[in-house]
């Protein structure tokens, strides 16, 4: 009995550790300024809950528009990325494919040496992609990391299966689509999730490549609300002209808004996520 009670307390404590921060974020987003001031920043339970912070954020249509941009970029980017990564990983998983070794080395090279900010910008500019949604999608289309994970998975598929399909007259594309992909749902889910999270969270590339604020994705718009004031020291406070940062309730409302989509998708993909990660981790 005592053991059960202790277990219960420990479980409750662990749950509280996870739930309390979320509750604080949600409650603060619903609290009024007076209560936030009185508690020094975070509120555990709003005395007079209101939706003012959410109304302020959603006014003017900027956030709504950015949300649509983010969804568009994430969906299109993830689909294109999955297509590219799958095709490249599959070809690299089959021994003897055309230019197998040089292409594999090129992929590995990108894992070791990332392009600098300015070369990337100049490339995007030369390609005429500035102020285009493609500047958000194309640079991260074929991630070396994802290719390696998927390639490792494909290599584990028995060669006999593929040989059998070939004997039955299937070409490479048919083998990929009909034999390999149906067996690879877990790795597709995990790579897709990686891509989607990366596209969803990206803001820095949008800041560099998109001058038109109407094309900004959600994360960059939200960043303008939760800009890191702590980075501005005392001296910077007079320089900035006494701008008033958005109140804490608004910053927490932003957090809630940005959490919702990933929180909705994650539970459905989580089982694949863990499985896929393990596959990538132990096979190489």
């Amino acid at each position, binding site marked *: 009995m005592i053991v059960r009670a202790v277990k219960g307390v420990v479980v409750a404590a662990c749950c509280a550790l996870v739930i309390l921060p979320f509750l604080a974020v949600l409650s603060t987003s619903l609290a009024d300024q007076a209560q936030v001031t009185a508690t020094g920043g975070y509120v555990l339970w709003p005395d007079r809950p209101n939706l003012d912070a959410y109304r302020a954020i959603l006014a*003017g249509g900027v956030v709504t528009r950015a949300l649509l941009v983010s969804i568009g970029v994430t969906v299109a980017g993830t689909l294109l990325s999955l297509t590219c990564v799958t095709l490249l990983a599959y070809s690299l998983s089959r021994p003897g494919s055309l230019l197998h070794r040089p292409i594999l080395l090129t992929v590995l090279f990108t894992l070791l040496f990332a392009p600098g900010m300015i070369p990337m910008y100049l490339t995007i500019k030369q390609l005429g992609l500035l102020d285009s949604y493609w500047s958000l999608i194309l640079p991260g289309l074929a991630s070396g990391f994802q290719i390696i994970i998927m390639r490792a998975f494909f290599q584990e598929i028995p060669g006999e299966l593929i040989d059998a399909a070939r004997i039955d007259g299937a070409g490479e594309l048919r083998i990929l689509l009909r034999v390999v992909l149906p067996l690879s749902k877990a790795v597709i889910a995990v790579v897709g999730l990686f891509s989607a999270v990366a596209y969803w969270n990206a803001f820095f590339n949008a800041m560099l490549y998109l001058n038109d604020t109407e094309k900004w994705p959600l994360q960059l*718009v939200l960043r303008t609300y939760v800009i890191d004031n702590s980075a501005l020291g*005392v001296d910077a406070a007079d320089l900035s002209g006494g701008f008033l940062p958005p109140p804490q309730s608004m910053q927490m409302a932003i957090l809630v808004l940005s959490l919702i989509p990933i929180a909705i998708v994650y539970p459905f993909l989580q089982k694949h996520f863990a499985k896929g990660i393990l596959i990538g981790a132990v096979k190489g």
Partner: protein
Amino acid sequence: MSDARHSRRQFLQLTGSTALLAASGGLLTACGPSSPQAGPQAGTRKAVMPAYVPSSLVKPDLPATAEGVLAAYYSYPAEPVTAFTDKPGEGLGEVKVLTNMFNPVPPGAGANRFWQELNTRLGATLNITMAPAADYVSKLSTVIASGDLPDILMLSATLANRSQILTRLCADLSDLVSGDAVKTYPFLANIPRDSWLATAYQGGVYAIPIPRAIVGTIMFARSDLIAERGLSGEPKSYDDFLALAKGLTDPARNRWAFGSAKGVITYVGTMLGVPNTWREQGGTFTSEHEVEGRKEAIAKTAEMVKAGLFHPDAIGGKLNLRDLFGNGTIALNADGYAAWDILADTYKVDVGAVVSPGPARAGQAYFAITAFKKAERDRLAKLLRICDWLSAPLGTSEYMFRKFGIEGTHYTMKDGTPEPTSLGKAEVKLPLEYIADAPHVLGPRPRARVHAQRAYQERVVPTIVRNPAAALYSETAVNKNGTLAKIIDQAELDIVSGRKPVSHWDEVVRQWRAQGGDQIRRDYETALAKGD
């Protein structure tokens, strides 16, 4: 994945400045001689700073002084004056602008009536590219490296290779603004001399400043708490200040004097004769870090931390100091001068300032500088007129429009004060004040507060200690600022927290000197000797 992206970004930030140097170096070579010293008539002429002609268009309740005390208003002038009868940018077509922003992003021009009306009033299409202030240097670096400069661009004080970028890539404005020429732009002439100091490079004036007050950082106090405890908010010595801090601390009631050590070290330093960043004597520069008073100020702050006068999370913690000041958890907080109204308006508490027994330390009199892409003289003159329009002071209809939008649409006047409508709150967020702006003023706010602010400035500004290097340029100071500040900040934190003894400071100063401090000194001494 997100970790990988994060580290990649950090890497990019680290390599960014080097890459910019390389990239802009290539561009610079294309634009002129490759030697970095061979700027336009380097060393052969001295920049003639623009004349200071205070604008008399609007009469403030209390006028600005030549020393740098801000003008003050008790209320918004009932009838705003219209300063411009024409459209300053007529005929310019599209004007590309790059600047930073602190506000949330406003709706784009297509869906923003304020922006559309702005373009109509200017007679030009202002195409503003804005980046969050925290990311602005990255954005600016890439734009400069690409060589595709906008017509008007704000240059941060921390931008690497600022001098070269200005003198090689940007327009020399000397003909248009030096000396009396600036009178063509009456509101740029209305910007005090202190703010212009950072715009002169290699004998020319290459930018206009976004002005800030000379008064800088203030030690704000909760006057109500001081009165409640029967203390004196006017220390005559360090001991008085210590007594004030002790009197305001009451851990049992969750009350402490301070919430952050950095501002206290600087403040105590003013009582001990620590120079404002540098001291210049006979052409020789001494850093604030090298004087004995600085070490003593750190030691005294460490003693105050030990005595429990600081909030328990003050050292190494990340506190929301304004909220803690507002709810009375901390009673003294060093903050920018502009925070006075923010603190009083947001928290509805009695805010005062504690005047240091020593001379106050001047702030940086500009936020950043605004430069222009090389262009025909006529185009430059019109771009400057746009900036002049953007600098029209309080009391003009241009100012009211810039800050509040269209009356009836974006704001309504209530008891003589503009009240933004919900549309105003959403749309009037364009970062125009980070392109060009009028000098700040005190108020319009309740008379008692304006008087308190004005009295503080009148008391400290006449004896304020300016940074003698404010008008000088050091490449090392700009490029190594982050590294050097980190060395100092970490050491201060180690000492005040008790992790390291005060004697550790000597070693830190040696490190600071070796890693760039001495080079900055040499840069300043050379620049002063050359008269740059």
